[in-house]
């Protein structure tokens, strides 16, 4: 099927070329980081993880979210999703690739990365995270490829793929749970030390991931004419709405526990994020309030069934992605490290070079996604499975 990559339009090749150039430029900046050390980033002794690890966390969620298509399709035989599943699985692959890269660029000594495997350490959550991520990547590659190959030959995929798909459903939950355990098991970081962390991670993943997918599908429809189908879009939007409501609910539970118990350690990070702490405010505060506004905005469009998949849906999804990204891609990390271990504030601001490296990783993800989706699209058009509204 790889040959499908060779039959694209000029516009498609321009896009690939653009991505390659971006990746090359960002890679040069990464080389600077490699030689000069992580001193080129805004991280510091007190905020020792930053943008890289937070993007890793966010993208594990995006990867896990493919399950929101796979689960209804395989467990509930919801046929309308079948046409879209492959795009979800391929998006998961590209997300896991980005996750791995974000870990690598965050390491101080990436050339020693193999130490994690040479000295396996079962008491470290990072060890399990590595295993589940690699497992999930493998599962999605196999399932995606085999089902697509079968579709291309207009046959049923072999039975064993079905079992792998069931396994991948459980696996998806596990990758994000284990990622939450990276945070939730650490004593002394108040914002992270909460049993609801894994549940919050999953709910935010299950709204933001499908929202990104749906936005990209809408873009695809405009660019190529591939139509995921009206009903599928509406169902996915409903799933997104439920997940977002749960996400907000879980967050409010945190807020209640922190403030009603009135234990300073519990509310300090929230106070810092939303109002500033002991007179020190940072750029995250306006971001957090923006996230609140976006949450209200997206839910007021998504909750009423009449507007849910109407013409304002893309805006709602955009706001949802932004809100969840601020919560998990910024607030979670910064709130975990501030106030610091001395209950004082050390501020963190990513540097331009740090941002460029992060953009580079996203560009690699976009490249992987573009290539994989191109293959999938070609097969869909070749077999005439390109209009979800025709699925019976």
């Amino acid at each position, binding site marked *: 099927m790889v040959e499908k990559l060779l039959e694209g339009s000029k516009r498609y090749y321009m896009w690939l070329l653009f991505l390659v150039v971006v990746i090359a430029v960002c890679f040069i900046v990464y080389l600077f980081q490699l030689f000069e050390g992580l001193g080129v980033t805004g991280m510091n002794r007190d905020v020792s*993880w930053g943008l890289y690890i937070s993007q890793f966390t966010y993208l594990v969620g995006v990867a896990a979210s493919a399950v929101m298509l796979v689960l209804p399709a395989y467990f509930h035989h919801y046929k309308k999703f079948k046409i879209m599943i492959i795009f979800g699985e391929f998006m998961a692959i590209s997300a896991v690739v980005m996750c791995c890269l974000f870990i690598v660029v965050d390491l101080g000594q990436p050339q020693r990365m193999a130490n994690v495997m040479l000295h396996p350490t079962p008491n470290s959550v990072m060890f399990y995270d590595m295993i589940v991520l690699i497992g999930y990547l493998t599962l999605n590659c196999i399932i995606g490829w085999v089902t697509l190959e079968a579709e291309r030959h207009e046959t049923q995929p072999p039975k064993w793929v079905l079992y792998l798909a069931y396994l991948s459903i459980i696996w998806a939950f596990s990758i994000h749970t284990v990622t939450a355990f990276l945070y939730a098991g650490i004593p002394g970081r108040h914002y992270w030390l909460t049993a609801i962390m894994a549940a919050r991670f999953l709910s935010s993943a299950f709204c933001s991931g499908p929202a990104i997918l749906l936005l990209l599908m809408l873009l695809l429809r405009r660019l190529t004419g591939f139509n995921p189908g009206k009903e599928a879009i509406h169902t996915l939007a409903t799933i997104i709405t439920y997940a977002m409501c749960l996400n907000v609910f879980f967050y409010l539970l945190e807020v209640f526990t922190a403030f009603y118990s009135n234990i300073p350690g519990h509310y300090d990070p929230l106070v810092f994020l939303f109002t500033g702490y002991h007179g020190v405010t940072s750029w995250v505060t306006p971001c957090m309030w923006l996230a609140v506004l976006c949450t209200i905005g997206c839910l007021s469009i998504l909750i009423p069934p009449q507007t849910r998949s109407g013409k304002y849906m893309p805006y709602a999804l955009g706001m949802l992605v932004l809100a969840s990204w601020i919560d998990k891609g910024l607030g979670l990390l910064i709130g*975990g490290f501030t106030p610091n271990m001395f209950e004082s504030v050390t501020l963190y601001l990513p540097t331009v070079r740090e941002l460029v490296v992060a953009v580079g990783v996203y560009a690699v993800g976009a490249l992987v996604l573009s290539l994989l989706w191109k293959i999938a699209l070609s097969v869909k058009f070749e077999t005439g499975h390109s209009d979800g509204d025709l699925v019976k």
Partner: protein
Amino acid sequence: MNKNRRSFLKVAGLSVFALSSGATAFSSAAQAMVSPGTYEPAPKELKAKRWAMVIDTRTFRTADDYKAIIEACHAAHNVPDIRSKADGHEDQEIKWIWTDSYKHAFPDDLNEHLADRVKKRPFPLLCNHCTNPPCVRVCPTQATYQLPNGIVTMDYHRCIGCRFCMAGCPYGARSFNFVDPRGYLSDPVPNPEYPTRMIGVVEKCTFCVERLAKGLMPACVEASEGRILFGDLNDPESTVRKALAENYSIRRKPNLGTQPGVYYIV
């Protein structure tokens, strides 16, 4: 495990070269050349079942008293003074032992009406060599590990610089080499016998394992003129146990269950 680790350290010289040039295969070849079990404990090594430190904060009088211990440690271990250059890396500093106020050292004790002499006193802070160290629990490579005598130490050549241990330590005891530390050290380095570190690894106080092996007390203890005691917590006759039996002492964040091995007499 420890024997392996020590013999690993013996070939550290070779491994540093091999690892820093990115050739991991190289390093395992170097390790294979050294036969296992060649390690013998040094004859003069100071031994204990559980090393612990007692800091008598009442006896520190002037700023120089603190400066002496910090300088002794940082010189003995070639700890760079990143803050000495105003080059934008000040927040990315390295420190093994430093001072901070009571409020920051013991943030759980929210007593506004603390006696002035305690409130205003600087407290020397360092790694607590916890009995249940979260840093060891989270480290994915065992680059941070605990010795049977309670010391939590580091293998700088195995550390991948993931900084999970920094997130895990509730005491802010660990520093990461964000920049090349050698650029901030004098030439020759203050203590040529102790290795300098490379960028991208984490470091912290090691309770001076390398000095204990030679029969010496930790550098800060030696420089403190009796203000800091160091000894075996499991021996009722040791100086630390006697000091703890006779004085009121506190530890940092005891409610986290880490069981710090550094005690403060207030």
